[in-house]
């Protein structure tokens, strides 16, 4: 009894730190709907799976909104029996410091049905608030056929809607009181990740006027009932490890014998270049160059997908690296111009509708050199940078948590709200074997 009393007395004497109460400010958080692509779905490690969905930024944001009076948030979660979803990448081991990455097979496929965009997924036709569709672009969002092409979108549609209902319609029908829109990345990424050699028309760079028209239509529809929300810009490709991990001069020659062999193989200087001991530019295909090949320029970017070919199969040295594995200067310029144009549209739509704007482009630009948070270092670096998952494009759960907090700061500032940020330390980064 005495011990209990002493315990109560001491507990009641614990130090306390006063803090302002959570509040929604000017927002009605009854129904939050997240609009976007793979980033919104929680996609990471080149897949969509249950654990990733649970750490999607809309899920984290909704959890924090709830503390400020927000309502329930429903995601199209894969069930526990199909938790691996579409499958995902994991590190099996390191070889000479290079991660050997393998695929964990998916579990959520609908047997016997294949769409143009891949194997069909188990249906989830109940209403959901996370409308993140991996792969979707602004261009695709206005196409009624898209529901019959993209398995992630087809998954959410009633059978009668497949091939007849656009994503824009689906979004507007959801009638949120608060929304987030992070679309547009795939209007450049499809082009960029294919090394500027798109294999499908949907992977081309979207015309900026078309982009502007569709984006405006979407946001007009969302705000028609007075809803407020946050729009997000898209990051530059140079901010993402997929495009920055393999250096242009990844051809390391350690022995004179290797140098002599390559010089002999490439015309002993007759093509206008020669090799030296140490780091050399990779050799790439270029139809415009003499003999259709040349050293890559320091300003050009090698894709992460080329890593294994370079490390294990002689590409970039004895075999020139194919077009699909790098972005040349003119491709990069197109990407840069289109990214800037899309972002300009997004910023002006945010201004016109007086919506919050999370400038993800500026944010990723600001962290190129890395930063430290609670004694953990973060940088846009493959595997060890803690921000990006094993596909080199999509964040880790911790990366998504950090993005969520940036969105919350933007929302708080715009709407005079006090939504608490997420404890990012509760979310994982890359797992090591």
């Amino acid at each position: 009894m005495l011990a209990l009393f002493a315990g109560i007395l001491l507990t009641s004497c614990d130090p306390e730190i006063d803090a302002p109460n959570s509040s929604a400010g000017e927002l009605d958080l009854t129904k939050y709907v997240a609009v976007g692509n793979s980033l919104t779905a929680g996609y990471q490690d080149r897949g969509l799976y249950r654990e990733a969905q649970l750490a999607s930024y809309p899920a984290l944001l909704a959890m924090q909104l709830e503390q400020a009076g927000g309502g329930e948030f429903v995601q199209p979660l894969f069930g526990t029996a199909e938790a691996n979803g579409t499958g995902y990448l994991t590190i099996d081991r390191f070889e000479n410091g290079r991660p050997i990455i393998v695929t964990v097979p998916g579990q959520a496929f609908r047997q016997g049905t294949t769409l143009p965009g891949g194997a069909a997924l188990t249906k989830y036709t109940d209403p959901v608030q996370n409308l993140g569709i991996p792969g979707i672009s602004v261009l695709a969002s206005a196409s009624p056929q898209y529901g019959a092409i993209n398995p992630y979108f087809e998954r959410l549609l009633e059978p009668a809607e497949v091939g007849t209902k656009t994503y824009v319609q689906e979004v507007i029908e959801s009638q949120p009181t608060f929304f987030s829109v992070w679309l547009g990345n795939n209007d450049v990424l499809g082009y960029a990740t294919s090394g500027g050699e798109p294999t499908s028309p949907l992977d081309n760079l979207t015309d900026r006027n078309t982009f502007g028209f569709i984006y405006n239509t979407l946001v007009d529809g969302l705000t028609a009932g007075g809803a407020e929300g946050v729009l997000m810009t898209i990051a530059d490709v140079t901010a993402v490890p997929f495009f920055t991990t393999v250096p242009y001069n990844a051809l390391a020659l350690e022995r004179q014998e290797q140098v002599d062999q390559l010089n002999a193989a490439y015309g002993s200087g007759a093509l206008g270049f020669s090799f030296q001991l140490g780091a050399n530019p990779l050799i790439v295909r270029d139809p415009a160059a003499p003999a259709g090949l040349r050293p890559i320029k320091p300003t050009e970017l090698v894709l992460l997908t080329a890593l294994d070919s370079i490390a294990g199969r002689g590409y970039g040295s004895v075999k020139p690296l194919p077009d699909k594995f790098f972005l040349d200067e003119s491709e990069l310029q197109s990407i840069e111009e289109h990214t800037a144009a899309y972002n300009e549209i997004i910023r002006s739509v945010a201004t016109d509708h007086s919506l919050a704007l999370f400038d993800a482009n500026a944010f990723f630009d600001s962290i190129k050199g890395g930063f430290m948070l609670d004694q953990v270092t973060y940088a846009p670096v493959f595997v060890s940078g803690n921000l990006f998952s094993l596909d080199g494009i999509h964040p880790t759960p911790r990366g998504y948590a950090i993005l969520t907090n940036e969105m919350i700061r933007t929302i708080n500032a715009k709407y005079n709200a006090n939504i608490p940020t997420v404890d990012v330390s509760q979310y994982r980064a890359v797992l090591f074997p």
Partner: protein
Amino acid sequence: MKSKLLALLGGTLLSASAMAGGYQVNLASQRQIGMGHTGTGIQTGTSSIFFNPGAMSYLRENGVTVGASGIIAKIAYRAPEPGGVEAMTDNPLGTPFQLYGVYGINDKLKAGLGIYTPFGSSVNWGDEWSGRFGLNELSLQAIFIQPTLSYQITDQIGVGVGFVYAVGGVNLQRSIPVQNQQGAYGRAELDGDASGVGFNAGIFFKPSEKFSVGLNYRSKVDMKVEGGDATFTVAESISSRFPAGTQFDAQLPLPSTLTLGLGFMPTEALTIAVDVSRVGWSAYESLRFDYTAAINGADFSENARNYEDAYIYRIGAEYKLSDAVALRGGAYYDNTPVMEGYLTPETPDANALGLSAGIGFAVSDNFSIDASFLYINKEERTDTGALAGGIAGTYKSVAYIPGIGLNFKF
């Protein structure tokens, strides 16, 4: 590719902070704790070995004192706004103790031995809090062993000096921000024994029955750890970057303290004491660990501390109700040595107010008991910790410290 891919692994995971700030523990005598831990300008009995060896020569009887306190301390943490994350330390009970013995060689010359714990820290934030990559838990101990001689030059002046040999140890644990396939974070543990030497000298002047003054200097003691064990638990694939069997050396300064004390005895029953101390915290410039092997690419880690010297102001009083019973009270204000930007979770120090009360009871001519209670309230403090590898946020500490001591005379 290897260096590029792994260079950022875990970031500066060992360059971050360690040990404590403001890790002085001023709990050297149960009677004096009751009086706001004053004592340099008055006769405090056997504990003059600590407070002012110059006053020890005034003891008229041989004596032995044993005492101990229990520190019940809690620190609250709240992440920077608008973060909702909160944490509270779950610290083990700290138990500083003191043991003093004084023997009169003759009327003028006294010999004494003190064993006490003037520095230490024990902080446990646990494995879940958001700052665990800065610190999980820290335990720092220092036990001072001080043989002392004191000589009474005249009826009015006494001098004394003691040699200090300090032994102790440090144990520091933190999470390493690299996860294995099960999602478990790595862990680093640094554990080592430490020792150092110093001295404690004082002069005591008592011109009248109603007034006394003392000056005391306790020197800096550099605690050196040599060959401590650095143990790392990390995912298998990166374990070669954290070699097993690594040892470390480190050094931590326990700062000097210069104290001027005054004593007023307006009546035979009442004693009032005032102390001002200057603690030489500026000796603590950085914390450096040197490893016998490269840990994640570096064979040392260092973090700035840049403490500044700090003052402590104390006042205390004792009133003798009768020959048997004495009541005590006191207060002090302790300025933090930790500058803005240098706050770390080891001891998230701030300016502190201490309030104390105590009672003394003489059971017989030869045996008495002292009991004390001290409440410490540190100011709420918000800091980035960015200059010292800290964890940004707001910290608030309180401590409740009961203690008891026994005095024997012969």
